[in-house]
């Protein structure tokens, strides 16, 4: 209804380029939100929420990048995350680790190895998925890749189910869960600090990559206008493949952290987690990485708050309720730019 005005004034931009000017304001919003959440939840739950939020945020970034560049809701992404948890646990168990590793040097080496391995494997899986299921359909009707995405999601779930069975599988928590830093009367698990640091570090790294490098510029220009980018000499196929690689690698990293934090995983983990992460991406403004990160943390907070106040079973409903409300009042998401009609 407001469309005529919107088409006239809105810049025809999707933002893989969110990096530039409003970053400061965006981080300001994040900071304020965190303070409020801390007040509402109390320290222990706040840390839980932050950890969960970091995991969602990592997954959400993959959704948002893929959507930003080819406007596809990649329903298989949640399952890429799920496969990541299994790749990471297989890597660790095949090396013979099943419990906490207390030797700091060995722990660091192991963590680096498991992150690197899982991220590379998942990145390649993501590229493979793009190559086989999405690229042939790039000029097909909009809904076609959506269907293959969900088909891929079924395939991934079933493959995992064949290898690991339909039940919960234990994932080795190599990072000791009984290490705490005590500040005043609050015990902060070192694992949580580690996860949040890793997640935020990766996000910052990604922002720098997209904002500062040649490949990042190629990604931004492809998102902005694929044909024009191709005319300027950007290799579109390679750029999209790299986008999938990065998004899936981050989902893999999220899988590793999930295993470290919760110690269990299951073949159908990806579905709900994927939906929530996707919600997070939309909440923050799809196509915008900072928004996705913010959305991830918000979803984490909503879920933990629901549990903390005794409405754990309603958690998902609350998450989607918030999503509906945000979209109705602010369709472009919290940090998204108002995008003109895309029909």
């Amino acid at each position, binding site marked *: *209804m407001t469309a005529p005005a919107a088409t006239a004034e809105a810049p025809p931009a999707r933002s893989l380029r969110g990096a530039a000017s409003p970053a400061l304001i965006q981080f300001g919003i994040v900071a304020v939100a965190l303070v409020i959440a801390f007040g509402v939840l109390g320290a222990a739950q706040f840390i839980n929420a932050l950890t969960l939020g970091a995991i969602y945020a990592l997954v959400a970034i993959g959704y948002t990048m893929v959507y930003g560049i080819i406007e596809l809701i990649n329903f298989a992404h949640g399952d890429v995350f799920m496969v990541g948890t299994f790749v990471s646990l297989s890597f660790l168990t095949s090396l013979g680790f099943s419990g906490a590793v207390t030797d700091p040097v060995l722990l660091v080496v192991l963590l680096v190895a498991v992150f690197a391995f899982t991220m590379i494997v998942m990145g390649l899986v993501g590229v493979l998925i793009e190559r086989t299921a999405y690229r042939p359909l790039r000029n097909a009707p909009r809904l076609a890749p959506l269907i293959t995405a969900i088909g891929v999601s079924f395939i991934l*779930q079933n493959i995992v189910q064949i290898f690991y069975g339909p039940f919960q599988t234990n994932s080795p928590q190599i990072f000791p869960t009984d290490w705490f830093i005590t500040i005043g009367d609050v015990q902060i698990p070192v694992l949580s600090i580690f996860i949040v640091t890793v997640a935020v570090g990766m996000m910052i790294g990604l922002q720098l990559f997209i904002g500062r490098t040649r490949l990042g510029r190629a990604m931004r220009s492809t998102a902005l206008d694929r044909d024009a980018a191709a005319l300027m000499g950007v290799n579109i196929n390679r750029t999209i493949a790299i986008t999938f690689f990065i998004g899936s690698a981050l989902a893999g990293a999220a899988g590793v952290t999930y295993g470290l934090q919760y110690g269990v995983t299951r073949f159908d983990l990806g579905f709900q987690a994927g939906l929530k992460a996707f919600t997070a991406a*939309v909440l923050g403004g799809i196509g915008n990485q900072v928004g996705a990160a913010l959305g991830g943390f918000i979803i984490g907070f909503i879920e933990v708050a629901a549990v903390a106040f005794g409405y754990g079973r309603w958690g998902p409903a609350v998450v989607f*309720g918030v999503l509906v409300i945000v979209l109705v009042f602010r369709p472009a998401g919290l940090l998204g730019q108002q995008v003109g009609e895309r029909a």
Partner: protein
Amino acid sequence: MSAVQDLPAPRGRRAGAFRGRVNEFSGRHRSMSVMIGMAIVAAVLPVLAVVPPFSSFQTQNAWIDGFTNAGVFVLLALGLNLVVGVAGLLDLGYAAFFAIGAYAYAYAASPFGNQILGIDIAGLLGDAAGLIFWPMLIIGALVAATFGILLGAPTLRLRGDYLAIVTLGFGEIVPIVFLNSDELTNGTNGIGGIYRPYLPGIGSFSAVNPWPYYVTMMVLVTVVMIFCYRLAGSRLGRAWEAIREDELAAAANGINTVTTKLLAFALGASTAGIAGVFNAAKLTVVSPDQFGFVVSFTVLAMVVLGGMGNFWGVAVGAFVIYTINNVLLKTLNQFFDTLGIPILKDIDFIGLQFLLYGIALVAMMLLRPEGLFPNSRRKRELHAEVTEPGQDEMTLPEVTEEGGR
């Protein structure tokens, strides 16, 4: 409708005089031809079930039962096709309306539900309590339509993918609400003991005899299909297409886009409501896990694979996907056992069901992204697109052609 005859009919001419005459007849007597077509389908399916190779999968009664269940999905696909295929509104939470229809019937026709509503159908009607099924088909449709409007009213101003996401959220919320409102819905276990339909002369339908359900379903599909054809050819149907092609242009031409889109949602939802009522009456139990995202998605896949906007195509797509997923893949083991092919015999296909389903979806989509039976209009759009890659929604400045679907 006479406009149809005036249009050149290249397809008919190419395929010969008989085809041309069939086309002419179906153009002039649309409802009649749907009825004839469905009668043929309804008569042929039971025969197919006893002919090899189909007979080696399962017994005829099991096939009939499977066809009936497939019919539920045909109904759903027809309804979703109105929303997605005709009006162009992507709805990823369609199962919610299915759930609402099913629970509506469960409340009207089970001891548990009656207790909550404060009525006593069984006391009133005795053994014929299932009579309530027939009016509930309409009431269930109305209830679902109401929810369709309730959901649509605040969200329909969203565009494209955002609408899809909100409907996805709604589709997730509804089962969660049914799951968690224990006192009202009996939570995970759902509402059981739902009365089977009752028809004077036949009595109560039974679990062992699938035929009454089958016939009922065929009648329902026929009615809904006629309804869809009539709608699509009406002023409202043309308004939907106009909105699908270009909402701004449609609004500029005096179409009230809000009402029109709400009607699409409501009518699509009502079809799902009917399917829900039928499904509840057949299973005699409703529980939240019957209405997950997989259902919404499967129905969407049916619509897309059948050929969006083409009612027969969508119906066939729904039928094929349901049969592949719920009959063929489940019975492949038996099939290969009977054939005795060495390697295939040893594979556990039931465990691989969803894997094969996923592969089938991806493969079908890669081979025919426009669907098995594309709407003729959409097919032209796709051909026009060849010169202009990257544009997935084309706007064609031409007059709506009625005969195409």
